[in-house]
């Protein structure tokens, strides 16, 4: 056996041995990529806000939201946090009319969320069921998402909130950003968001919530019915909150 032969043979043997040895390692790596079984698969939560049924001066949904989610209210516009709020809009172009409208505004839970794209620590992300959530354990309070959000739906906790009406749900500490999460903790338990329940208990029924993936649900029927609009659909954020009568 000359030198060249020797090298070739040992090289082949070594390659074969390393391949055989690395096979179990590779397969075990592949196993680890399987993450926890998701209970969120197949759902795509969405909401339709029927402004024609929404009553003037009614604050049932906002009060329920504050109570359920411990949303801070300091009675000072600089520090208040709103997950759902009412704004009065009137047309810029006066030839269209002078009619003022009261519109419910909240996190639109975009399918293409700008806030999640800019978050430097991936604290804001889209859950598998389409809800855009903030992981407050991770949030560093940089407020980049507040700048990115075109709907002004995000608020920063400038102060500690002394009120804690619902002890079963955590508060937010000072220095994190928060926004509506469709009451994800209630959805996971099979319940509906607090604002929807409140709106129904008042009798208005202006908030309709459900699974957009389900063709037979009232939400998807209304959302695809031709009357529902989304705020600034042209931006390409693809919100999952639809408005009727906007």
């Amino acid at each position, binding site marked *: 056996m000359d030198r060249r032969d020797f090298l070739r043979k040992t090289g082949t043997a070594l390659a074969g041995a390393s391949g055989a040895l690395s096979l179990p390692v590779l397969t075990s790596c592949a196993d680890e990529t399987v*993450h*926890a*079984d*998701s*209970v*969120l698969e197949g759902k795509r939560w969405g909401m339709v806000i029927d402004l024609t049924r929404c009553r003037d001066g009614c604050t049932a949904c906002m009060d329920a939201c504050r109570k359920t989610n411990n949303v801070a209210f300091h009675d000072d516009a600089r520090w208040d946090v709103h997950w759902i709020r009412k704004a009065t809009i009137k047309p810029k172009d006066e030839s269209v009319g002078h009619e003022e409208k009261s519109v419910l505004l909240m996190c639109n839970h975009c399918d293409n969320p700008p806030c999640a794209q800019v978050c430097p620590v991936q604290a804001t*992300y889209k*859950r*598998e*069921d389409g809800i855009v*959530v903030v*992981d*407050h*354990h991770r949030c560093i309070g940089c407020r980049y998402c507040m700048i990115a959000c075109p709907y002004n739906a995000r608020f920063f906790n400038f102060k*500690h909130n*002394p009120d*804690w009406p619902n*002890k*079963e749900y*955590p*508060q*937010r*500490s*000072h220095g994190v950003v928060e926004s509506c999460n469709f009451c*994800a*903790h209630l*959805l*996971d*338990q099979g319940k509906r968001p607090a604002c929807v329940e409140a709106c129904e208990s008042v009798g208005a029924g202006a908030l309709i919530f459900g699974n957009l993936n389900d063709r037979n649900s009232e939400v998807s029927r209304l959302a695809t019915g031709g009357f529902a609009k989304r705020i600034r659909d042209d931006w390409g954020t693809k919100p999952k909150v639809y408005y009727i009568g906007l």
Partner: protein
Amino acid sequence: MKRSTVLTEKNRIRWATVFSFLIILPLGLSVVGFVLSRGQETEVFLEAPDPKWEACYRDAEYMRYHHMDLLKDVREEVVRFGIRGGLTLAGCGDCHTNRDQFCDRCHEAASVRLDCYGCHYYPERVAERELERINPTLQGPGQEPTEIDPAVQDPEQEPARIDPALQAPQEGR
């Protein structure tokens, strides 16, 4: 011109003395400190396995050293994947009612800052403590110290710092 900084024979001895002091002093101090601190190892963990602990998620040994891993895993499941209904921080407080003994005792000894209770609820005293920490002028409603069965109470410890769950009578010990 005075040239005291040059290493003459006299200066050399002076510098040698200074440097040897610089080396010997910290060494000696550490040796003295080590000798003095021997025999003063503080008992951090509470030695009282309660019968209730069998109903805990893991055994006491695991929970002492790895509870943070467990909590982080549960956190990921709940926050990222929506799997709820398991371990909760408030649920820990159902058995371990005294946060001073259950959490703060070790965390203060190890000087690891607890960040859970700025947001999460623990059944006892937490809201008041956090309020005090964040704003000393704000005072929550005062709360009485926990009622302790005098038969169970260890006379050597302060009455206010005893967790009834941890001070259960030890049998077979």
